């Protein structure tokens, strides 16, 4: 789960990592005051959890307090990439002599933390990896041991820093790693980390992604993610894994891999999936009811394909939940059900009684769903 730049900035400040002076504002008059107090040109940064907010116009420079107020009036309340801007961070504009990259993330294959540093900051890590791979210093950090001081020094040295800048870089490196561990992040980075003309360092941007599974230990960050459509939010509240797609055939299944495969098979036969909806491995009739009801809220559906492999899940439970949801929604969308496994006979009977036919094979069912949707 991403947290806002201003939240990551608070963590940076608590560790005394230098950041530009600034303030979080929710009204344009606050922005004006903040700009006045800073007595410098300011950068106004929309606090939204989407990638590429800069290119989308969410980050703006203002030379005067009144310019800042004008910009804030336009930004606050506007919608950028589908997300409403509720607050902006107003910070002094800092002219960097050089922009560095410094971050920690997780290397899945190696099962290690990894420290990444580069003398070419500013662009995102992905772009950096593509365009300047030889400018990236990468070092695996032992999860059971943690970051050693010498590793931080090695990073500074490897990206060509010396003197006080190297010492400061090592210090910031250790602090970001401490944050990374304390909040149990997937990613914690400063990018760009600016070298100013006097050789000091300032973290111009701070980005942290938390591990959703660890939020129970960090309740202060719960319910933060706004980078979701209303349906995705509802699904998340109901404990369903739901991703909205741009097609028109709704897809429900039990198990992430099976649902992904169902999407693939439907696409293979020319269908356009409207969503990914995983009910989970051991689905009860309540869960099925919630899932089907949610899927049917998608207004553009041309068909709904429910694909259940009842290993632990009982097919009769699935059937009951499905019938109840269909009754509740009174939908006209054709519903195609593929259902095999535990208590299959009983499940099929319940569905047949409600006028829903079932198929044996995922592929046959996918073909049928495409046919019903587009003809």
């Amino acid at each position: 789960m991403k947290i806002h730049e201003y939240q990551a900035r608070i963590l940076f400040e608590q560790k005394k990592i230098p950041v530009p002076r600034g303030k979080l504002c929710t009204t344009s008059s606050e922005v004006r005051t903040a700009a006045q107090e800073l007595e410098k040109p300011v950068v106004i940064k929309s606090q939204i959890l989407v990638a590429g907010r800069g290119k989308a116009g969410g980050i703006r420079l203002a030379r005067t307090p009144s310019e800042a107020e004008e910009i804030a009036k336009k930004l606050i309340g506007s919608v950028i990439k589908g997300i409403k801007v509720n607050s902006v961070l107003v910070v002094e504009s800092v002219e960097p002599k050089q922009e560095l990259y410094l971050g920690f993330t997780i290397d899945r294959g190696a099962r290690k933390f990894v420290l990444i540093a580069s003398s070419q900051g500013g662009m995102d890590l992905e772009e950096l990896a593509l365009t300047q791979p030889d400018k990236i210093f990468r070092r695996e950090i032992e999860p059971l041991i943690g970051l050693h001081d010498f590793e931080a020094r090695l990073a500074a040295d490897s990206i060509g820093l010396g003197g006080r800048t190297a010492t400061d870089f090592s210090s910031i490196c250790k602090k970001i790693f401490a944050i990374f561990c304390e909040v149990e992040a997937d990613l914690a980075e400063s990018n760009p980390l600016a070298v100013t003309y006097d050789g000091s360092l300032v973290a111009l941007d701070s980005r942290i992604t938390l591990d959703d599974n660890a939020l129970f230990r960090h309740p202060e960050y719960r319910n933060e993610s706004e980078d979701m459509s209303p349906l995705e939010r509802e699904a998340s509240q109901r404990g369903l894994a739901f991703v909205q797609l741009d097609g028109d055939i709704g897809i429900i299944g039990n198990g992430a891999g099976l649902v992904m495969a169902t999407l693939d098979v439907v696409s293979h036969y020319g269908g356009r999936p409207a969503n990914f909806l995983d009910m989970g491995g051991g689905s009860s009739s309540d869960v099925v009811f919630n899932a089907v009801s949610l899927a049917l809220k998608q207004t553009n559906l041309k068909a709904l394909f429910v694909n259940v492999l009842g290993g632990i899940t009982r097919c009769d439970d699935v059937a009951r939940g499905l019938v109840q949801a269909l009754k509740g929604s009174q939908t006209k969308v054709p519903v195609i059900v593929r259902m095999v496994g535990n208590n299959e006979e009983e499940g099929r009977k319940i569905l047949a009684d409600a006028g829903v036919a079932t198929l044996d094979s995922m592929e046959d069912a996918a073909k049928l769903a495409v046919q019903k949707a587009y003809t």
Partner: protein
Amino acid sequence: MTILVGNDTKVLVQGATGREGRLHTAAMLRYGTKILAGVTPGRGGEIIENTVPVFNTVKQAVEKFPQLNSSIIFVPAPFASDAVYESIDSGLKLIVVITEHVPIHDSIRFTNYAYSKGVTIIGPNCPGIISPGLSKIGIMPGHIFSKGQVGMVSRSGTLTYEIAWILTRAGYGQSTAVGIGGDPIIGKDLLEIVEMFAEDGGTNSIVVIGEIGGDAEERLAGKIKHGNFKKPVVAFIAGRKAPPGKRMGHAGAIISMGTGTAASKIEAFKSAGVPVAELPSQIPELLQREFEEKKKENGP
């Protein structure tokens, strides 16, 4: 022969008295798994399913049943990590972590610790291991699997059952099926399990079920490309149509920073000479074709 789980497998159930623990203890016992003991702190002295004594600590269970060698963990995510350390400490050599939603800073630590102690971890967030007809340490429905010589390894749960069912109906029984789990950090990965199958006398071919996210498939393909694998390998990759930046159910199934796409994995397998099925139903015929190919390559 099989890998990881077989006749000698003697199982401890951690989190035995919870709902999931009880349900699957019963299912495993029915399947024939030798479950000797359960552990739930504070519940020592109870008996579940009429036969399985529950202890407060793994130490007590192992003292009572020194033949225990494997553990399956159902304890809730906040305590799963501790349960893993407790089993490692008591000398169990195979630990299957069923628990979902284990924090990644926990799993990255306990997988490293387990490696340093020579302990095999499967999972977390996985269906477990089944050697059909012999034993299972997991939550998969046993009746879908059948005894045979195909080694299966998969990052998913129900998709594994789907493909096992297709194989079973096509007459391809399985030596062992291993569900390694859908989290970003897991114990044994695709490559490590495939290497075990490559060495296993009871396995004549391998079905790999991958999905988007990470580079486990690419690493496996690289090893196959430059290694000396004699057994047919067939792959399936879920998530061809998944959009980037979205987690597709599994925490690990996410295309991020341009890596982990299905296209990249399929390309890697193809370049290693591993056929990738476009539909699950194609897997038996691809296996058949590979058997014939390998027969030609390896000679009579």
